[in-house]
């Protein structure tokens, strides 16, 4: 339920993580997709999953260097919906942990 907290509550681990990667200006840093917020536009750095799950991601068009937008989270904050070259794909937050994305993100809309 950590995703429900607002970034202002800095004593919670999620917000801390979020603030940390936002304050870094080292652009080689990457962060799991599961920590991104609605509207974030990020670039895929690496897929860390294994076996069938990773192949599934590759088949759906997830790959290094690809731009991705977090469209929304489901009403119960899981799963999440992302957009990838015009395709809308939903995946569970725990699965999104296996997608490393750039921390350089543009936040568009809310």
């Amino acid at each position: 339920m950590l995703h429900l907290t607002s970034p202002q509550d800095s004593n919670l681990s999620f917000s801390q993580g979020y603030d940390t990667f936002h304050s870094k200006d080292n652009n080689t840093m990457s962060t799991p997709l599961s920590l991104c917020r609605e509207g974030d536009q990020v670039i895929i750095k690496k897929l860390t999953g294994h076996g069938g799950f990773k192949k599934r991601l590759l088949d759906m068009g997830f790959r290094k260097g690809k731009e991705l937008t977090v469209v929304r989270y489901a009403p119960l904050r899981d799963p999440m919906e992302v957009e990838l070259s015009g395709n809308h794909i939903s995946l569970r937050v725990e699965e999104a942990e296996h997608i490393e994305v750039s921390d350089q993100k543009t936040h568009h809309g809310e």
Partner: protein
Amino acid sequence: MANNSNPTDSYTFALTGNPNCGKTSIFNEITGANQKVGNWGGVTVDVKTGSVRRTDSKLYFTDIPGTYSLSAYTMEEIVARDYIINGNTDVIIDVVDSTNLERNLYLAVQLIELGKPLVLAFNMYDELARSGTQIDTDQLSHLLGAPICYTVGRTGKGIEELLDTSVTIAREKYSRQHPVNVQYGHDLETAIAKLSSLLEEIDFQQRGIHMRWYALKLLEDDDLITQQVKDTTGGEKVLEEQQQQLERIEALYHEDAATLISEKRYGFILGAMGETVKRTPVDRINLSEKIDGIMTNRFLAYPIFAAFMWLLFQATFSLGAYPMEWIETGVGWLGALVQGSLGPSMFRSLLVDGIIGGVGGVVVFLPNILILFFGISILEDTGYMARIAFIMDKLMHRIGLHGKSFIPLIMGIGCNVPAIMAARTLESNRDRILTILIAPLITCSARLPVYILFAGTFFPNNAGNIIFMLYFFSFFFAFFMGLLFKKTLFRGEEYPFVMELPPYRIPTFKSSLIHMWEKAKHYLQKMGGVVLIFSIVIWFLSNFPLQTETMSEYDQEIQQLQSRIELTDDPTTQNRLSDEIEELRFEKHRVTIKNTYIGRAGQLITPVMDPLGFDWRMNVSLITGFVAKEVVVSTLGVLFTVGGEDDEESEALQSALRRTYTPLTAMAFLFFVMLYTPCIVALVTLIREIQSWKWSLFSLGYQIALAWIIAFFVRWGGLLLGIV
């Protein structure tokens, strides 16, 4: 078409493509309702076949499950790939969503690598044209090494040309096509070459497929192909090389070969598209996204979903109640007709009570199934089904299920039969089995008469609350068992949820109708025979051994009373006598049923049911309840020999029950009825859908065991708490 061609030419085509590429509407457009659904390789994956006759040839089509690639991950994808590799097809037609070329061509590239004759159908061309995108078709076709046809599946535009091209390719076989290979770079190519030649050496299965493709699959670490190589003599040598190459590439690139191969394929696609596809930048916020802003909105998503579910439920069960009534009347009329035209005999009884009654019991669910599947096909074709999974997944995932499992479970409230069938919407076999296992626990409408009778009899002031509680508990047990099975039987078998949310589309009426017709045909074909046999068995058990003597004794007595009625003119005597006749009829019924096999079985299981406080009459009613749950009420009516009415409102039955059982026993009985196997039709449906005797027996066994255990706890918990 050339005139010199043989008019008896026949060709087979396989239609493949990504999910949501419009493949099925093309298939429907080509074959019309002239389709057959079959299973491929004994799994519950529909493979549809259809044919079309043209002036000089007959064309056979197979619509194989949609797939994103030839990785073969879910059951559907394994079937799809198996069919593409092993199926006896002349040409593969890959339906490509032309508005989404990049990802759709990913499958196309892998098909090209297979080396089988291929035609690309660039579908949804109208949408592509509207977006202003231009394609240099000749050049792209040249780069991909396969002809490209433009189609609009929804309207049928371009389909004739697609068929012409496909037939031409089928006639000429490979001659038209030039081999195209994706270049994977020096390191991967070396590995491919080595593995190909080793595979060649051990004579690995060819089937018109390039060795290069198998080599690539080995580098992608494909489980099934690796297993097949292992099973081939000399395969160990190939697998050794595979391991070496995989390690070498991993060491060189710090990335597995599968990822590198995938990147190269996308590189090839983007390269080809860069040369040939001219896109005009489009506004990203399209209609679909606007709809989703509402449909999956934090606050509106659930009310909207509940409204749709309510509509589907009402349509299925309230609207469906009318045709059901007609069917029941029809079956009753047919039964009466046979009853009237044949003399009383065992054969008549078999025909009327066994066959007509049994088959009628199957046909009567047909309206439910038709309407439910019409609704489901609309949910699927519009794309809303994926959104249901999206908003429900968090809840369903808790019990190890997929978001889509919610629909079968909720439909179970009406009837478990269509609910079990609705589990087909689930892609992974594991999710499907788990859903089918717990769906029968949901209280269906046939159980309601039993609830009404017992709640009304024993808890007249709280009947509504008791019934609500029973519904609540039936969901509770379904979720609880789901969680338990997830933790025990299905541990660590989870499939990824990664799923496309396709753009919303308006479904075509034709495809929804075809979908509905398919399910109905399937249901009747599959269920009819088995239920017929079961009905005859049940009829036999509830009529044999024959008690001719007892029966004729009663008949004689009734006859005597009958003749006395005719002799007298006094209306009070007449009434008294006909009451006596009625009484005798019921006594006859009760005595005979007690001595039939079913009656004996009911008495035989008394020691087992004794701890629950059930007597033989309850037991017999539970056994007859296998036919249909509402039969429990009418059996109890017969066994308590209450005249005339034996429905759940009957005053006489209620007071008889009140005299015999304690409220606590009644409660235990209610829980037992709630949890044990719904009915024979549901059981047969379950066996057919789950396609495994092991799981079917498990389902039957666990439901009965669960019912017993819970009824036991209800009774003994109550006794310990001092409730009588």
